[in-house]
């Protein structure tokens, strides 16, 4: 599916293993993508290590505590019409984040089609879904704090539950909040024609999209390891 990459001088680059060796041994540009995209990928790689450190330390404290670990299914349950539904809010937050990833993917596609209006509105929709995600997280934090969960202890079980929870979801929520601001700034520049005047190919929309999809990707891991395990 990948189209053959061509350098500025019109040289067609080899694919696969031969292309890999060529790219790294050519003594010039190794990544044949816009520099912003390569840098965003490298930033996301470093972010991967930060989130991995959090999740691995969570595994470590959960495995080493002798106290019972609070059951996330009960702690994050919600009562709807007298029936307790496990993990309800978390499930809603998961589906909201997936929906926002879908609208972002469409925004990137519309950007490359030079459809300014659709790109703008799809990015605004993505940001709105992201903001509602952060709002629900604030609700979740408030609920847990009211129930007595603190970073140094909680009434349900191992003290490490609170520190892991606030650290991991707090850092992820901060990423979502930053992403909402980032998306709104880029969306506004798409609307005003800033990138058009600069002669950009709307790659910036794809780069912003990479960040947003990464936030969704991290949530997939948090959902699996923190909420479901």
């Amino acid at each position, binding site marked *: 599916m990948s189209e053959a*990459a061509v350098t500025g001088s019109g040289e067609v680059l080899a694919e696969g293993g031969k*292309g890999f060796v060529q790219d790294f041994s050519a003594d010039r540009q190794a990544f044949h993508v816009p520099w912003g995209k390569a840098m965003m990928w490298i930033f996301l790689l470093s972010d991967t290590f930060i989130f991995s450190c959090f999740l691995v330390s969570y595994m470590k404290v959960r495995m080493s505590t002798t106290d019972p670990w609070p059951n996330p299914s009960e702690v994050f349950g919600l009562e709807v019409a007298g029936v307790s539904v496990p993990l309800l809010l978390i499930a809603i937050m998961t589906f909201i984040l997936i929906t926002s990833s879908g609208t972002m993917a469409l925004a990137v596609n519309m950007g490359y089609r030079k459809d300014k209006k659709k790109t703008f509105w799809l990015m605004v929709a993505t940001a709105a879904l992201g903001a509602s995600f952060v709002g629900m997280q604030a609700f979740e934090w408030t609920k847990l704090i009211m129930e007595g969960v603190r970073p140094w202890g909680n*009434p349900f079980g191992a003290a490490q539950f609170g520190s892991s929870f606030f650290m991991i979801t707090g850092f992820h929520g901060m990423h979502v909040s930053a992403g909402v601001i980032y998306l709104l700034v880029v969306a506004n520049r798409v609307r005003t024609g800033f990138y058009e005047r600069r002669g950009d190919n709307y790659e910036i929309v794809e780069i912003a999209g990479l960040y947003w999809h990464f936030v969704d990707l991290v949530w997939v891991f948090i959902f699996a390891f923190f909420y479901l395990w």
Partner: protein
Amino acid sequence: MASAEGQQHPLTIYWYMWIALFVLSGFSYATDFMDQGYLRWSLIVTLMLLKACGIIFIFMHMGWERRALKLAILVPPVFICVLIWLMAIEADHTWLTRIEFFGESTFVPEAMPHHD
């Protein structure tokens, strides 16, 4: 510029990926109703990895990038497995030390969340 056209793909790919993510997340949520055990844990991890691959290769377009970028970004995270292995050994050691010196947990839950 290498690929002046950028990443342009038919919209249907995104729709299918979107639906797949919804279905897989639905299955993920359903694992919460299963008993703890190897079946549940392996399902959680399998569904998680399927969703992660879908997001990385389709939504983030990694599947269409050149191998130089693919390897530079996707190989380093593999080494996190070493950290997981080391920390799992460390955690077992800490747990055994705690049992040895402090004995079994005397923690009594003050309250469980009320949702009934």
